[in-house]
């Protein structure tokens, strides 16, 4: 079991509004139906479901959100976005969480060494895509 104390201080509010600002979405539109999680092809690999992440963003729980791998597993396939009944671009929220980390807490991200032969083999499209989503490039 875990316990959480809820409070809406400046840090919490700031995190929520920053995510809202970067994504351009109203996080509070989310009414927790979970359709985003239900349709996600990668949910089995995520530590938190997407709707759980959305709720945590609403509550401003920055640490919990950033510790989870959910937004990094997201492949931006946008299935959640097109199915969200509340017109939230859920994928954009995931992107905003990635961006938040890259912009404000880059030190928390592990560096990755990619082997030479892999770089040669993998198509540019994947390399550029990956760098765009997972780095500051």
């Amino acid at each position, binding site marked *: 079991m875990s316990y959480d104390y809820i409070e809406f201080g400046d840090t919490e509010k700031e995190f929520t509004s920053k995510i809202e600002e970067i994504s351009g979405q109203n996080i509070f539109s989310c*009414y*927790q*139906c*979970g*359709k985003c999680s*239900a*349709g996600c092809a990668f949910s089995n690999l995520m530590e938190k*479901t997407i709707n759980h992440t959305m709720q945590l963003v609403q509550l401003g729980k920055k640490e919990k959100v950033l510790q989870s791998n959910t937004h990094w597993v997201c492949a931006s396939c946008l299935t959640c976005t097109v199915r969200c009944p*509340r017109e939230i671009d859920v994928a954009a929220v995931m992107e905003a969480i990635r961006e938040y980390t890259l912009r404000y807490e880059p030190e928390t991200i592990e560096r990755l060494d990619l082997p030479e032969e892999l770089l040669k083999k993998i198509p540019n499209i994947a390399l550029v895509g990956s760098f765009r989503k997972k780095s500051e490039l």
Partner: protein
Amino acid sequence: MRIGVYVCECGKNISATVDVEKVVDYAKSLPNVAASRVYKYMCADPGQELIKKDIEELKLDKVIVAACSPRMHEPTFRAAIEDKGLNPYTLEIVNIREQVSWVHDDKKKGTKKAKSLVKSSVMRSALMEPLDRKKVGVTHKALVIGAGIAGIQAALDIAGSGYQVTLVEKTSSIGGKMAQLDKTFPTLDCSACILSPKMVEVGRNPNITLIANAEVEQVDGYVGNFKVKIKKKPRYVIEERCTMCDDCVPVCPVIVHDEYNENLSPRKAIYIAFPQAIPASYIINPDDCLGIDPLICSKCKDVCGPEAIDFDMKPEIIEDEFGAIVVATGFDTYPIENLGEYGQGNIPDVITGLEFERLISPGGPSTGDLRRPSDGKLVKNVVFIHCAGSRDPAKHLPYCSKICCMYSTKQALMFKHEVRDGTAVNFYIDIRTGGKDYEEFYQRAAEEAKVIYIRGKVSELIQDGDKILVKGVNTLTAETVELHADLVVLATGIIPSQGTKDIASVLRLSLGINGFIKEAHPKLKPVETSITGVFVAGCATGPKDIPETVSQAGRAAVRACNIIAQDEIEVEATIAHVDEILCRGCGICVGTCPYSAITLIDTKRFGNIYKVASVNEALCKGCGSCAAACLNGAINQFGFEDKQILAMIQALGEE
């Protein structure tokens, strides 16, 4: 001229944002103002007494009340000043609640705005003239459109008060959607058992004229005097002769889908909607029949003993007059074809709630054994998906249809009663049990029948072999879930029926953004519409369950009786009037009038004939469209004359 100004605090509603004392002081400084007072609740009796006393003692001849919207208390204050001998139309209401205090935060600015609104009304008040209400006669007969449970109940209640009522139904039988249901929540009463006595009563009641297989084509006139054209489509079977022997059905060579069974079973071109149908007579659907032409096929006519079949029947136009109309045109369910992620209707074992009702009904296509549509196998596990297309402003219906939680629960319970060892899973977002005994019913489903409830919306349904893979989520365990189901039932929401849309355009009723008929007031006038004398009951105004529909139908009936019980009724006094000298007969107003109240007539001036506009006083609702559209300023509205409005504008323009 002696004007009294009365400012209401409305508790803190107004006084929090408007400094009422200052407004009162300011009013005293305005021309013609003989009294200016404030009171906490002007609409309360002491408040009204204050006004009445001043009229008597200070000899006021005009009264201004600065309070809430005139939609709320205009009648209250009109009655109050009429009591003391003033003309009710000399009352002026300044809306400093909805238009000032509720929309502003800044008290200084709010006070300033309230002051200038009061000033503009004082200026207008001086120019207000007494008006007379006209009276018109009333036809003591009502029309009910649509014969589902709402229409049936309204017709029975009107008939029960001793008035004549005509009930028009589009399909071949009355009963509506309720006749398709197997059981009703929360009591699990058999739907047909509680509905059919009412249907029989409609057929029997001498005060009710039932016209089935008919549509209302045109409505003219006004409250108390509606002139209605009803088109009765040919049934090709003479109702009085048909003995319901069923000899015709076996010989009919045409097989089509049965709408009553949601197209899950076949029927013939000659058929009866369902065994308890009223009128109790067969009908031939001309679209299905080989051509209503004895040369091609007349098998049914040949076998009909009582000679009830008549291929020469023609559509009939019935014209009649009514004093009041009740619209009860019901609902449709949201089309499954719009739900792409749930298979768009292409997965045979993904069905709607209404289809489930037919499948589980003993009178349905599988005679009560729950067999699924694809292969006729008995169903062992069912998934119910709540909010299928509801609460989804992104793509589907933005609103909650209110009944789906309960009907899915009911269906899950019915399924468990039928298949004891089966599983029923309900995917829900929120369970809404806002009705008497509904919560208990929901608990009973979970506790006694072990119906499983999983909180989360299903994202996708996939045909996987002969089963359906349900991809969902359990938001309470924070896991995504998958499961295989034999049958998936979508709890599709309620949408306005085609009949509702059609009748709204015939009657020119206002519709809300979701296409339901708009009530005159959502709380206090729930069955009244934008047109006086036209009332609405049941799902035509929005989603409702059966108890609510029945009670609303009762209120609609009472309101209709209120009108048809009178010999004459008063109509609006703030109507349009034409200055014939200025009018040049262009007729722009004729096309602009939403109530068809204006016509062009000939008028003689020195022997020459001119066309001029003329307003039918009973039809005019005082909306002012014509006055705005008239290029010449030849049309004005009583109570909203140009000079009065200009005086207001001038006052608002001055600092």
